[in-house]
């Protein structure tokens, strides 16, 4: 049993990667995720692993491609502008059916934006991000402990489905320090790595590729990928429901805003308001069905996010026009306050009362 240590989210992710058997990390400096590469530069030599500070995000993600093609667990991390640069490589990983873990500790954009926390890369993360019809599994932790736990899950999912898996955090989660316990990943399944490039001794050559010039070959790949995505949506969707069973009003939020809302829910419950929180843990696949089911009893919804409104589009896809969906978004460059969420809730609740 590992002992409890005090780490920031970025460090917890890095240690969790080590504990998941990841021995290859390639990164390029960008705030607010620099603790990951600093931790890896210190830690990798201790476990006979490889750390390279790459010359660019492009180089880093392609080093990931190379190591992944040899069948080893590998990770890279960056923040929003850097993740945009990695998108080409992520698309190639998806097309070549190669596993990898990619961390995005989001900062505010567009463009260079600034280093304040943000959730404005939701569209990019959940819709594929690069070119082509592909998805990455997107995991969204809401605490340092969960950042570590989901990192371990990310490696397993990447191997299980042979695809890139993204961890999506806002900058505050990367920086925030909390006590955390990071055990070694207990492997419960074995993964077929017969596709890996290892030298063709005793077998036919393996090729890592996403180029398919034959008329039928590319549609075949795409159909295989789409079937897999449907399967993942069935098997891997994850969501936390906090006091939603009897809720009249449900907040939908992830990451740091979800944590803020959890505090608010306890406070409002004490005042007799039936308030609940639905927190998607997988942003893709999104928990459409679970959200839709809450509409059996919930009257109204509030989406709270650190963007101009991206998560809300998935909430609308789940609920359609069946219920009022309110929105509280704080846009890039500004911090979110608990008091402003409370004010928003007060006005919603007052109007709900008026309608009753």
């Amino acid at each position, binding site marked *: 049993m590992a002992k409890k240590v005090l780490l920031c989210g970025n460090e917890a992710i890095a240690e969790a990667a080590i504990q998941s058997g990841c021995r290859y990390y390639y990164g390029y400096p960008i705030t607010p995720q620099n603790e990951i590469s600093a931790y890896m530069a210190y830690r990798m030599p201790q476990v006979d692993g490889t750390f390279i500070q790459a010359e660019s995000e492009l180089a880093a993600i*392609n*080093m990931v491609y190379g190591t992944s093609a040899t069948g080893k667990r590998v990770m890279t991390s960056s923040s929003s502008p850097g993740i945009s640069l990695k998108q080409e*490589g992520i698309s190639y990983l998806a097309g070549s059916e190669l596993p990898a873990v990619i961390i995005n500790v989001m900062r505010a954009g567009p463009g260079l934006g600034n280093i304040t926390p943000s959730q404005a890369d939701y569209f990019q993360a959940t819709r594929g991000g690069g070119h082509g019809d592909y998805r990455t599994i997107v995991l969204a932790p809401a605490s340092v402990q969960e950042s570590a736990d989901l990192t371990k899950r990310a490696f397993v999912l990447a191997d299980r489905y042979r695809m890139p898996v993204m961890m999506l955090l806002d900058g505050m989660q990367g920086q925030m320090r909390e006590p955390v316990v990071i055990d070694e990943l207990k492997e419960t399944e074995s993964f077929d790595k017969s596709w890996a*490039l290892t*030298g063709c*001794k005793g077998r036919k050559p393996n090729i*890592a590729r*996403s180029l398919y010039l034959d008329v039928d070959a590319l549609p075949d790949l795409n159909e295989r990928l789409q079937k897999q995505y449907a399967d993942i949506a069935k098997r891997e969707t994850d969501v936390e429901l906090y006091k939603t069973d009897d809720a009249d009003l449900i907040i939908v939020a992830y990451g740091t805003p979800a944590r803020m809302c959890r505090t608010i829910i306890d406070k409002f419950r004490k005042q007799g308001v039936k308030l609940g929180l639905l927190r998607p843990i997988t942003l893709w696949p999104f928990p459409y069905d679970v959200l839709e089911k809450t509409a059996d009893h919930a009257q109204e919804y509030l989406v709270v996010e650190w963007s101009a409104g991206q998560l809300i589009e998935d909430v609308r896809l789940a609920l359609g026009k069946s219920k009022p969906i309110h929105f509280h978004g704080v846009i890039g460059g500004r911090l979110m306050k608990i008091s402003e969420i409370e004010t928003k809730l007060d006005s919603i609740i007052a109007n709900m009362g008026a309608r009753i």
Partner: protein
Amino acid sequence: MTTYTVPEILNEARTHYCAGCGHGILHRLVAEVIDEMGQRESAIGVAPVGCAVIAYEYLNFDMSEAAHGRAPAVATGIKRSLPDRLVFTYQGDGDLLAIGCTELVHAANRGENITIFFANNNVYGMTGGQMAPTTLDGQKTLTTPYGRDPKDVGHPIDAIKLLQNFDNVVYLARGILTSPKEIMKTKRYIRQALEIQQQGKGFSMVEVISQCPTYWRMTPVNALKHIEETVINQFPTGIFKEL
């Protein structure tokens, strides 16, 4: 009399290269050398984006593709994972010296223990004959219809000069494929580079001037003459670094 057979390492596929292209010869040289070294089962190659994009259809061992220009980064990721395998990239002039210049320079400076085979034909072939970083001064291409003007777009980039001063670069050579004699010389460079990698010495590159009759708008024979009379003045042959 010598009988030439297809080495085990070369698939018996009909290549997609144009008539008179140098890629077929260079593929064969790389394949022959790896065969002769007995390394087919430990070789891992990285194909570029460009004319040689489907080199893995012709070479019968483990291969990876790479996004345009990123082959040295992909090869880095492979070699760091499997240090005892023979890892090389096969890249053209646009891939290596335009879009992939950063990856080349940094892989070389780190002294990644990989080998780069650089097919330099002074032109973008796959996309229809545009100017490459190595297009000669005055050379006409689709995008230099009046000839390359060095005042406007600079002179051709010499990859060997670019890398020569990095301490961790241990082997640099340039060959041509214009006659059996030159082909055998180029083959020796390829062998030396791969042996240096086997010894774990560091980064090696063999540049090969590859004829492109199609986009040089020449007959294959004239393309060979063009290399011997003109191209080697800009890109001379020989071993430029050996540590």
